[in-house]
C-alpha cells in the first residue's frame, strides 16, 4: 500500500466512484417486469378487451390490387390461391352483369371490354368474413379451425388434417388447401400483426382508405362508429353466418 503512488490511488478511487454511480443508476427490475415492459411496448392485447371488425367501403376501392399484393408478400400465400382478392362488377344497359377478378386482382384490372354501355361499375374486395356463427369452425373435425377470443377465425396448421371440409363449408370461397403445407389456409386479418398493435397488411397499403380495421370494444373506435351509424351490409346474410366483415355501398348484384 505504501508503494502505491498518488496517481494510482486516484485511479482506484475514480473506478470505485464510477462503479457506485453505475450500480445506483441501473434500475433494479425483475424478469416479469421487463417482460411486461416489452409487452406494453408491443401493445400485446388482453384477449378479452378486443373484438375486431373489418369495414370495406366499396365506393372507395379503385381496384389497384395493392392489398392483394401486400397480402401475398406478408403471408407468403401460394401461387393461384388468395387470402384476399378484388372483384370488378360492370352492369350494362342490357341488364347484364360482367364480373371478373383476373389473378384475384393482384395485377390490377385491364380496360373494360364488355359489350354494351356500362351504366354502373365498381370494385369489391373480398376476404374471410370472420363470421361469428361460422360454418368452417363448426365442421372442422379436430378443432384445427377455431375462433380466437377477439373474433378472428384461425387455423392451427399443426393440428389440421387437411380434409378440406372447411373449404367446402365456407360460403364465400375464402378458404383453400395450401399446396405447400397441405392444410387449410385463409385470411387471418394478419393476426401476427394485429397482436402487436399493427394493422393488417392490406389495410396499411390501401391508398384510398377503402379497407378499415379496428376494435369494436375500443374507446372512440372508428370501426364501431361506422358500423353503428352508417348503412352497412354483409355478404350472403341469408346464410346467418354473422360476418364481421362489413361493407359500405354493397350493391345487390354482388355475389
Amino acid at each position, binding site marked *: 500500500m505504501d508503494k502505491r503512488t498518488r496517481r494510482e490511488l486516484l485511479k482506484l478511487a475514480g473506478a470505485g466512484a464510477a462503479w457506485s454511480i453505475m450500480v445506483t443508476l441501473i434500475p433494479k427490475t425483475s424478469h416479469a417486469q421487463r417482460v411486461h415492459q416489452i409487452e406494453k411496448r408491443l401493445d400485446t392485447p388482453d384477449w378479452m378487451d378486443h373484438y375486431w371488425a373489418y369495414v370495406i367501403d366499396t365506393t372507395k376501392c379503385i381496384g389497384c390490387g395493392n392489398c392483394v399484393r401486400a397480402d401475398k408478400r406478408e403471408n407468403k400465400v401460394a401461387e*393461384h*390461391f*388468395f387470402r384476399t*382478392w378484388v*372483384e370488378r362488377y360492370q352492369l350494362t344497359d342490357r*341488364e*347484364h*352483369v*360482367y*364480373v*371478373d*377478378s383476373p*389473378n*384475384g386482382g393482384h395485377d390490377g384490372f385491364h380496360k373494360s371490354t*364488355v359489350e354494351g354501355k356500362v351504366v354502373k361499375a365498381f370494385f369489391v374486395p*373480398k376476404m374471410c368474413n370472420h363470421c361469428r356463427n361460422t*360454418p368452417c369452425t*363448426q*365442421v*372442422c*373435425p*379436430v*378443432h384445427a379451425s377455431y375462433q380466437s377470443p377477439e373474433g378472428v377465425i384461425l387455423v392451427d396448421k399443426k*393440428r*389440421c*388434417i*387437411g*380434409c*378440406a*371440409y372447411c*373449404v*367446402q*363449408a*365456407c*360460403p*364465400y*370461397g*375464402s*378458404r*383453400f*388447401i395450401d399446396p405447400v*403445407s*397441405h*392444410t387449410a389456409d385463409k385470411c387471418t386479418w394478419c393476426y401476427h400483426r394485429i397482436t402487436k398493435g399493427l394493422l393488417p397488411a392490406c389495410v396499411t397499403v390501401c391508398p384510398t382508405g377503402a379497407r378499415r380495421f379496428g376494435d369494436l370494444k375500443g374507446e372512440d373506435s372508428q370501426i364501431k362508429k361506422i358500423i353503428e351509424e352508417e348503412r352497412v351490409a354483409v355478404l350472403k346474410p341469408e*346464410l346467418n353466418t354473422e360476418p364481421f366483415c362489413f361493407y359500405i355501398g354493397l350493391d345487390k*348484384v354482388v*355475389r
Partner: protein
Amino acid sequence: MTYSEYSFPNDLHIFWSLMIVTYPYITGLIAGAFVASALSHVFGRKELAPVNRLALLVSLSFMVCATLPLLNHLGHPERALNIMITPNFRSAIAGFGYIYSFYLTVLLLEIWLTWRPEIVESYHKSSGMARLFWGSLALGVYEISGEARKLDERLIFGLAVIGLPAACTLHGYVGFLFGSLKSNPWWSTPLMPQVFLLSAVISGMGFLIIVYLGLCWNGYMKWSFPCVRSLTFFLWLFLVLYVVSEGLELLFFFYESSDAWYAISQLILTRIWVSFVVLQIGIGVLIPMILLTVLMLVHVKESTYYIVSFISSVVILFEVWLMRWNIVIGGQQFSKSYVGFRDYDPLWLEKEGILPAMALTLLPVLILFILTRLLSVHEPETHATHATHPAAEGED
C-alpha cells in the same frame, strides 16, 4: 339480370377428388349388404338365408377398406386419429370414427359368432401354425354345444338388431356430411341422407346379387331361386324409393327456383349433362327400373330371371357410382358465386387419381375372395332349415 361466368379465385380448384367419390361408394356397399343380411336375421326372411353369410363377408370386406380413400385424401393422414382423440363434436365428420368403430365392432362380433362352430372345428382338426391361427380366431372359446349355439344365435339376433340402425346411421350420416353444408345448394337438402341411404341399400343388394349369382354360376354356391327372387324384389323396392327421393329432390330445386337454381340448372345442362342425365338417369335408373318392373310383373324362366337380375344389378352399381360422382364432383363444379363453373379431369396416376380409386374399389373384392376361401359362405343345414329369428323359433 344475367351474369357473365365468374368463379371466386379459390373456387378454381376441386378439393374433394375421386377419393371422396370412392368413400361413400364403399360405405354404401357395406350398409346395403348388411341390410340384406338383417332381412334374414331380424325380419325372418328365411329365403335369404343362403346369402346371409355372404352378406356379412361382403360387409366386412368393404368395411376394412372404407377408411382407405379418406386416408389417401387427407393432407395429413398421420393426424387422422385426432378425429377420435380430440374431436369437435359440432362437426359431422367427427362422428365418423365412432360410428365406424361401433359398427365394425358389431359386425366383427356377429361374424365371429356366426362362424364360431367352423372355427372351433378347424382348430380341433388342424395342427401347427394352422391350429394357432384358428385358436386365435376362436378367442379361447371352444364350447359349441347345442346350448352354446342357441345363446350364440340369440346374440347374433341382438347384434343384427343393433347393427341394422348402425349400418343405416353409417351411411345416412355420409349423406348428412353433404346435406348439412348450407354453402352448397346442390348438397344442402334434408333429403340427402335419405337419398344416400337408399342408394346404399340398392348398391349393396345389387353387389350381393352379382356375387351370389357369380358364385352359383361358378359352382361354388347352390342355386336358390327364392333367394334371388327375394333379393331382386327388395332391390326393386328400394330402387323405387330411391328414384322417388332423388326425383323429389330435383323437383324441389326446380320448383323453389331459388337464387342457386341458375347454378344447379346450368350444372345439370352443361357440366354433368352426360354423367347425370344421360348415364345416371338415362341408363343407370331407367334400364334397371324397366327390367326389374318387368320381372315383378311377368313370369319368366328361372335362368332368364337370373340373367335379368344380374344385368340390373350391374347397371345399378354403375348408377350408384355415377350418383356419387355427380353429387361429390358435380357439387364442386360450380363456384360459390353461383355463376361460375369448372371442369374436373382426374389423372390416371396422381395420388387421388383414377388408378388409386380403381385399386381401392377393387381391393375389397380381393379381400372378399380371400375371406370366402377362409370362411365358408354355405349356411349349415341346421341353420338353413331352422330360422334364426327368435320369434320364428317360438312359432316352431
